[in-house]
C-alpha cells in the first residue's frame, strides 16, 4: 500500500464528510447526517495521518529521508490535515457539528488540488531546508493557518446567520435555522482565533530563530516574513477589537475573513506572485 493511494481515499472521505454536513443542514430533523459527517472526517484524518507517516517512511526507503513538509504538494496536504484536526478539536469541545459544512470544503479543496493538480514525487531536501527547525516552524505555522481557516468558515456562517436573523425573525423552517445562534458563532470565531494566534506567533518566532541560526538575521523583511507579520497585525487587531463593543459581531467576522485571505496570500500568494527567500513553496 502506498501513501499516494491513502491520500486519494482521504480526499474521497473529506468529500463524503462535506456532503454529509450539507445533508445535515438540509435535513434538520435527522441528526444522523451531522454525526456521520464528523465520523467520516475523523476517519479521513486518521487515514491521512497514516498516509503522512507512510510518505515519511517512503522517503527514507528512497535514501533521501525527510519529514514530508518540503514542497508545495506536501505543505498543502499537511494544511488539509491541520484544518481537519482543528475542526475535530472544536467539534469534540463545543459540539457544534454543522460548522463542518463550512470547514470541510477548505480541507477538501486542499486535498483535491494536491492530488489532482500537483506533482507528488518525493524530492530530496535542498540544503536550505536541512534542519530540525523545518519541523517546528512548519507545524506551528500550519496549525495556526488551519485555525484561521476554521475561523473564516465560522465567520462566513455568522454573516449568513446574522443576515437571516435580520430579515426573518421567526422563520424556523429555513436552512439557516440549523446554524448555531449568531452569538455562539461569534464566540467560536473568537475561540478558533485564540487557538490560531499563539500558534502563528510561535510559527513566526521559530521562523525567526531558524533564520537567525541559518542566515544570521532573525528578520529581513522578506515578503514571506512581512506577510506573516501583516497576518499577525490583523489578528492582533481582531483580538483588541473584542474589547470594544463596536467591533464584535459583524466587523469581527469580516476581520476574521480578511485575516484568512491575508493568511492564504502569505501562504500561496507570496510564493506564486512575489519573489523572496521562501521559494521552495512551503
Amino acid at each position, binding site marked *: 500500500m502506498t501513501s499516494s493511494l491513502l491520500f486519494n481515499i482521504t480526499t474521497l472521505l473529506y468529500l463524503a464528510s462535506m456532503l454529509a454536513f450539507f445533508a445535515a443542514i438540509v435535513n434538520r430533523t435527522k441528526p444522523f447526517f451531522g454525526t456521520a459527517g464528523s465520523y467520516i472526517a475523523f476517519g479521513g484524518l486518521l487515514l491521512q495521518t497514516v498516509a503522512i507517516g507512510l510518505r515519511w517512511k517512503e522517503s527514507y526507503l528512497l535514501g533521501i529521508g525527510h519529514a514530508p513538509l518540503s514542497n508545495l504538494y506536501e505543505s498543502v496536504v499537511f494544511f488539509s490535515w491541520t484544518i481537519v484536526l482543528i475542526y475535530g478539536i472544536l467539534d469534540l469541545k463545543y459540539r457544534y457539528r454543522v460548522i463542518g459544512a463550512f470547514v470541510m470544503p477548505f480541507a477538501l479543496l486542499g486535498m483535491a488540488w494536491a492530488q489532482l493538480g500537483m506533482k507528488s514525487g518525493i524530492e*530530496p531536501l535542498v540544503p536550505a531546508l*536541512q534542519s530540525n527547525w523545518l519541523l517546528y516552524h512548519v507545524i506551528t505555522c500550519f496549525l495556526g493557518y488551519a485555525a484561521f481557516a476554521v475561523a473564516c468558515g465560522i465567520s462566513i456562517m455568522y454573516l449568513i446567520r446574522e443576515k437571516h436573523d435580520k430579515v426573518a425573525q421567526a422563520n424556523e423552517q429555513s436552512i439557516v435555522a440549523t446554524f448555531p445562534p449568531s452569538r455562539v458563532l461569534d464566540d467560536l470565531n473568537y475561540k478558533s482565533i*485564540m487557538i490560531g494566534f499563539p500558534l502563528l*506567533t510561535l510559527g513566526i518566532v521559530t521562523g525567526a530563530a531558524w533564520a*537567525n541560526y541559518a*542566515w544570521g538575521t532573525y528578520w529581513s523583511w522578506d515578503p514571506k516574513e*512581512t506577510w506573516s507579520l501583516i497576518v499577525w497585525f490583523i489578528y492582533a487587531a481582531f483580538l483588541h477589537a473584542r474589547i470594544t463593543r463596536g467591533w464584535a459581531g459583524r466587523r469581527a467576522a469580516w476581520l476574521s475573513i480578511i485575516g484568512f485571505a491575508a493568511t492564504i496570500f502569505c501562504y500561496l500568494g507570496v510564493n506564486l506572485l512575489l519573489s523572496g527567500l521562501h521559494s521552495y513553496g512551503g
Partner: protein
Amino acid sequence: MTSSKKSIPQSIWDFFCSLKLTMFTLITLAVLSIVGTVIPQGTPPPEYLHSISQNKLKLYKGLGFFDMYHSWWFILLLSLLSLNLLACSVKRLPGIWRTITRPVRVMDDSLETTLPNLTSIITSGDAVTLRDRVAAVMKAEFAEPVITEADGTYHLFAQKTPWSRLAVYAVHLSVLVIFIGAIIGSLFGYKGFVNIPEGESVGKVMSRSEKEIDLGFAVHLEKFSVSHYPNGAPKEFKSILTVLENGKPVAGYDRVPVIVNDPLSYKGITFYQSSYGKLGEHEFTISDSDGSNSQPLIVKSGGSTKLPDGSGLCLQETTPDISRFQTGLSGPAAQVEVHLANGENKTFVVYSNNPAMNRMNLPYTGGKLLQYRGGEEFMYTGLQVAKDPGVWVVWVGCILMVVGIYVAFFMAHRRIWVRVESGTVTIGGNSSKNQGGFQLFMEQLVTKLKKQLPLEDNK
C-alpha cells in the same frame, strides 16, 4: 456640562491610551507593510527601474518606498504602537496590581450585586460548623480560603492564578523588549559579507552599508566542496574554515566544516555558508587559421571577452583533462559560448591539444583560430557574517510573548466569596475569562456544598 472640555494634557493622554489608536496603528501597519512586499527593497534591480516612469521613481524615492521598513513614517507608526501600549499599561496596571496584591476578602452588598453566580443555601447548624465544612469543600475543590470574621459572620475568600491578569501586560512588554533588542542589534552589531578563495585568509569583511570591518582575527578557507544527490540536485555546500589568531590556528576552530544551517561562531561573530563560485584565469590564443599572428586572450572564470571580429565570447566551463568527458581526447579544454553577429548563440568546446578540432570552429570565430592554453582555477566560498549583541534580548522578548499569550488566553483569575451566617450560606464568584466554564464550575461546587451541609428541607 460637567467635564465636556478636557484639558489638553488629559486629551493627549487619553489619545495615547485609546483602543482606537491601537486599531488604527495595527491596521495601518498591516496595510502599509504590503508596499514593501510589492516594491523591491534595497537597491532596486535595473529591470525594475526601467519598468516604472521617472515620476513614479521620484515619488517612490521621496516616500522612502525602497527602504520602507526603515522610513520615517514606518518608524513613526511603530513608535506610536509602542507609546500606545505603554500608555495603556501605565493606565491600567496599578488597578490590576491592587486587585492581585490586595484582594477584596469580604463580599459586601455592592460586590454581591456584580456577581453573576450568586447562590444562597438555606441550612441548619451554627456558623462555626458551617464555616469549617465550607472551608473544607473549597480547599478540596478550588483553593484554600482566607477567613475573615465580622459580627458573627464569617467571610471566606479563595482565588486561583491571580497573576494571570498580568499576562496581557507581559505580552505588551515583550513587544517593547523585542524592539529594544532590534535597536541594540542595529547600533552595536552589523551584517556583512565576505568571499574567501580556497587556501586564502581574510581579516576584514564588507558590511551591508559598504563599510570595511576589521574582524580582529582571520578566517582561512581550507577547502570548499559541493555534493549532489543522484538526480543532480545540490545536497551540501561545505566550507572547511580555520580561525587564525596572529596567523596561528585557534584550538577548537581548526578545520571546522561549515554548511548551510550549521554556521561557525567565534567571539560573537558568526559565519554562515551563503554562496560559492569559481575564481581563476584562463589563457586562449587567437591566430590566423594557419596558426600565425598568434595573440593571447585572457578570460576570467565565468567571464567574457570580445573576439577580433567584435562578437562576444563567454567562458562557461573548463577542465584540466578532457579525457574524463570525451574518450580518445586529452589535455585541458574549455566550453565557450559565442554571440554571433547574426544574433545566434553557438556553444562549442575549445581544446588545447587538438588544433584540428579547433579548426572546425572557424565559422564561429570570424575565421580566426581559437585555441585554449589552460588556466588556473579554484573555488571560493561566500559567507554571510553577522554580529548581533541584541539577539538574546529579542529571544527573551519572544519567549515572554509566547508564554504571555498562552497565559492571557488560557488562564483566568477566578475568585470565590462565601458568606456564612447561622442558617445561611451565600456563595458567589467571578472569573476574568471563560465565564461559561466558570458558571459550570460554580454550579458543580454548589451541588457539592449542598451535599456537605445539613439542609433544612432536604426534599
